[in-house]
Each structure stands twice: as structure tokens, then as C-alpha cells.
């Protein structure tokens, strides 16, 4: 084996660099989490120390629970994210199937039209989106957010899913046709189960930006009962700026759900990115 590629010094340097960067990446998250469990004085006196029996306190979390409606915010975020993902996947896979399976006039053009949105951010149209939502009475409802995120997610979903659907064998679909299945049954019963991995990739790609978005909740649904977790924590922290316990606890509560989701889905996410789905 070649020497340069297995030199122990090299390996050590590589681990050193990676550990250093991992520490940089995790340090701020770590510092927020440990300090959220400390009482006010030790937050300032020893910010780097872990909470011990003396400095441990959950006063921040108590404030958050009393003052902010975090369960409602969490529920709103959950509804918006899950519903948007559902529509992105359903509508996206249907359109992707139409584009990849059937030959019809305008197929190419329709594909290009749907792909436009991959590069152009939907935020550019915010002024008119707000006008439309006000006119239709959807402003300050979760539907406004769901519609916007669905529209935002569709272009990439159609693009990725149609790439995968082209790989589904024609023989299978034709066998279904000979057995007298309708086009809809073939799509839902035969094709969809086969592209499930691609759908998971699309879902994971869309989940994080939807959950974390601040712009549209701020503009389309700022009412108390429709606040998402991201907007809710933003507003809460703005109001409690001087109450460090509350701020740190609110931040931790916003971090945790995402972190848990990440632990569950990280393999899917990384496989999705590295399989070249976004080439």
C-alpha cells in the first residue's frame, strides 16, 4: 500500500482538523443547552460549566411554559410541515408520473415550466401572495402557509421524482395494463411503492426549510393562534430579551424537536444528498 495514504501522522492531522471543526459546529448548541438548565447567577459566573446540583434550575422552562404557548406553536409547525409534505409528495409524484410516463404534446414545455421554480425563490412574489391571501381570506390561517410551501416544494419534487420514475420498468406497468388496471391504479399501487426511497428524500429535503422558515409565518400568519414554532420563539425571545433563563430555555425548546427529527432522519438525508438526487 502506498505510504502517503496511510501515514499515521497524516491520519492524526486529519482527525485533529475534523475534531476542531466538529467542536466549532457543536459548541454554540452545547452552550445554549447546558445553560438553559442553570440558575441565573451561574449562567453568568461560569457559562462553560455543566449544571450541577447547586446551579441546576428549570426556572427558564417554567417561564416559557407560563408565558408562551409553545405547545400550540409546536402543533402549528407540525400541521404546516406535515400537510405541506403530503401535498408536495402527492401532487409532485402525480405530475412527475404524467411527465415521465406519457408522451403528449407540450410534455417538454410543461417540464421546463415546472422546473423554473427550482432556481427562482418564491419570496420574490411575496407582495402579491399577501394580496391574494388577504383577498381570499386565507391570511392568518395555516392554509396560507401550506399552499405557499407546497408551491415552493413542487418544482424540485417533480424534477427529482420524474428522474426516478423513468427507471421504473415498463414491463411492470404494461403487465398491469394487460390485467386491466386503470392508469390510476397502476400509479398508486405499482409505481408509488417503488419510488418510496425517492419520496423520502424529497420529504427530508423539504422538511427542514419549511419547519425553519420565518419569512412567510411572519408575513402571512402572524396571529397568535397560527404562529409556528420558529416565529413563536422569535417573538417570545424578543419580548423576554433580558430574562436570560427564559431566552436560553426557549432556544433549547426550539432546538430539541429539530435535533430529534435529525437523529431519526439523518441517514435518509445524507443518503439522499450523497446519492446525487440534486445533481
Amino acid at each position, binding site marked *: 500500500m*502506498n505510504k*502517503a*495514504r496511510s501515514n499515521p501522522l*497524516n491520519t492524526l492531522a*486529519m*482527525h485533529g*482538523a475534523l475534531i476542531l*471543526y466538529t467542536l466549532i*459546529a*457543536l459548541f*454554540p448548541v452545547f*452552550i*445554549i443547552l447546558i445553560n438553559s438548565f442553570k440558575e441565573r447567577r451561574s449562567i*453568568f459566573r461560569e*457559562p462553560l460549566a455543566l449544571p450541577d446540583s447547586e446551579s441546576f434550575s428549570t426556572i427558564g422552562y417554567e417561564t416559557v411554559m407560563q408565558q408562551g404557548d409553545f405547545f400550540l406553536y409546536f402543533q402549528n409547525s407540525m400541521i404546516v410541515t406535515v400537510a405541506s409534505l403530503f*401535498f408536495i409528495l402527492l401532487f409532485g409524484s*402525480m*405530475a412527475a408520473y404524467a*411527465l415521465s410516463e406519457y408522451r*403528449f404534446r407540450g410534455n417538454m414545455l*410543461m417540464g421546463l415550466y*415546472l422546473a423554473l*421554480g427550482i*432556481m*427562482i*425563490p*418564491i419570496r*420574490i*412574489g*411575496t*407582495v*402579491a*401572495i399577501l*394580496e391574494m391571501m388577504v383577498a381570499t381570506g386565507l391570511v392568518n390561517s395555516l392554509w396560507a402557509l401550506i399552499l405557499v410551501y*407546497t*408551491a415552493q416544494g*413542487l418544482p424540485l419534487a417533480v424534477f427529482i421524482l420524474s428522474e426516478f420514475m423513468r427507471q421504473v420498468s415498463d414491463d411492470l406497468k404494461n403487465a398491469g395494463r394487460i390485467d386491466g388496471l386503470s392508469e*390510476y391504479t397502476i*400509479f398508486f399501487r405499482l409505481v408509488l411503492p417503488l419510488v418510496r426511497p425517492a419520496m423520502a428524500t424529497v420529504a427530508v429535503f423539504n422538511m*427542514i426549510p419549511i419547519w*425553519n422558515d*420565518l*419569512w412567510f409565518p411572519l408575513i402571512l400568519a402572524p396571529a397568535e393562534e397560527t404562529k409556528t414554532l*420558529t416565529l413563536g*420563539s*422569535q417573538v417570545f*425571545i424578543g419580548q423576554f430579551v433580558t430574562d436570560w433563563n427564559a431566552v436560553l430555555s426557549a*432556544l433549547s425548546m*426550539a432546538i430539541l424537536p429539530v*435535533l430529534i*427529527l*435529525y437523529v431519526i432522519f*439523518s441517514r435518509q*438525508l*445524507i443518503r439522499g*444528498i*450523497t446519492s*446525487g438526487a*440534486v*445533481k
Partner: protein
Amino acid sequence: MKQARIRWHILVFLAPAVFVYTAVMIFPLFNTLWLALYTRVDQERVFVGLENFRTLFFDPIWAEQFWNALGNNFWFFLVHMLVQNPIGVALAALLSHPRLRFAALYRSAIFIPTILSFVIVGFAWKLILSPIWGIAPSMLDAVGLGSLYAPWLGKEEYALTTLALVSVWQFVGIPMMLIYAALLTIPEEILEAGEVDGITGMAAFWKIKLPLILPSIGIISILTFVGNFNAFDLIYAAQGALAGPDFSTDILGTFMYRTFFGFQLQLGDPHMGSAIAGAMFAIILVGVCIYLFGIQTRMRRYQL
């Protein structure tokens, strides 16, 4: 055999996606560009052509803010290109080393900031850099650099760069992952052939791997460009809609938000807001076109 009848199922499959996409994305996009050509006079919408754009580019009050935001936005983008992408490439190069242990662990850990929301990232760094809490100064003291500390987010000359670096910290995971994926597709035979010719280590990276991953670097650059020119959340979370101190961190996204919704004594103006959105659209379009026609088509792709 020619079929004259309409194949309804194609229509049914396409309709929902095309409808939602057109109604919520494409139509508002053009409607916004259209609104930029109007203004409001006594509750009436009046067509003024390109007047709003002239105000935006040349009227002393507006122009100063607009060019300031645009300049800041370019600096924001430049910091990403010069810091985020090289670090991402370097990390990916390390991670893709064939016999590296714990690679998956490092990869997952370094990607964590990318999944957090801007609100969390903005506030967390605001607290850490704050002179009141003193984590940043005491850590700098520990390595003997205490004199370098300044309240970076509060100083006009540093605030924008600091926020850009915070954003780099958050998003370094994306170039890392995409480059990592590209590096994995390079066949071992090519690297071995290089070794036979005496090209190993760093030389192998610069002479063999880098030319092969250039297309991915191109994709990352355009993603960074589009992302940076409609950025908003981080600045808003850390500095508020006024993008202080004294507008030194104002970028197009925050400028558009302020103009559209109004702040303090200024009333919101949807038509000027649309004009700014129009300018952002033009900038992004130019960037995407340069990438598609200027860079992507000229880039040499190697058949692996």
C-alpha cells in the same frame, strides 16, 4: 394509429401540481412585477411605468438605502464564496479519505448547524458574542487573544462580516455534503493511476480530484448566490428589521421587508416593495443565466 380522444388521466395527474404552482408561485411572481409599475395616490392605484425603479435607483433617499443594501448583499455573498465553500471543500476532502474512521460521525455532527432555524442561530450567536455574557471575550482570553475582542455585532464596521460568518458557520454543511457526494463518485482506478505516476496526497487533490468536482462547485456557487440574494431571516433574527447598527447589515431581503411593511414612522408601501422584489428578481435571473450559459456549458465534464 392516431388517438383523437383526450387522455383524461394525464390531465388529472398534472392538474393539481400545475394549478397550485401557477396560482401560488408563478402568478404572484408576475403580479408582483406588475405591481411595481403602479403607485398609490389617494387610495387609487395609478400606473406610473418605471417611475418606482427610477425612484429606487436615483432618488437620493431611496437610492442611498438601495445601493447600501445591494453592496452589503454582495459582500455577504463574497464572504460565503471565500470562506464557506473552501471550508466545505476541505472538510469533504478530509471526510472522503478512504480509511478514515468515524467519518459518518463527523459528517452528521458538522451538518447539525444547517438544520437549525435562523432564529436559533441568530440568537445563540448574539448571546455568545455579547459582551454582557462574556463567553467570547473569556474564550479569547484563554488563548491569549483577549485584546482582539470587540462587540462585533454592535460595531458598524464588523457587524455585517460577523453575521456573514455566522451564516457560513450554519451552512457549511451543504457544500460539504455535495462535494463529498461528488468525491465519492471518483473511481478508485483513476486515483491509483495517478499514484503510479507519482501523484499522491495534496497533489492528487489539486490535479485529479479538484478538476473532477468543478461542476459541483459550480452548482454550489449558484445555490449560494440565490440563497444569499433572498436572505432575510438571519439578519432579522439577530438585528431586527432595521438591520442595525445604522443599516450596516441591511441586505435586499430586510430592505424589501421594511419597505413593504413599513417601520417606525414610515408607512408600508407595497409598490416600492414590489419594485425592490423586481430588482432582486433581475439580479437572481442574471446570476442564474450567467451560471447556465456562461459557466455550466463551458465547464469541461469528464466521462467517468
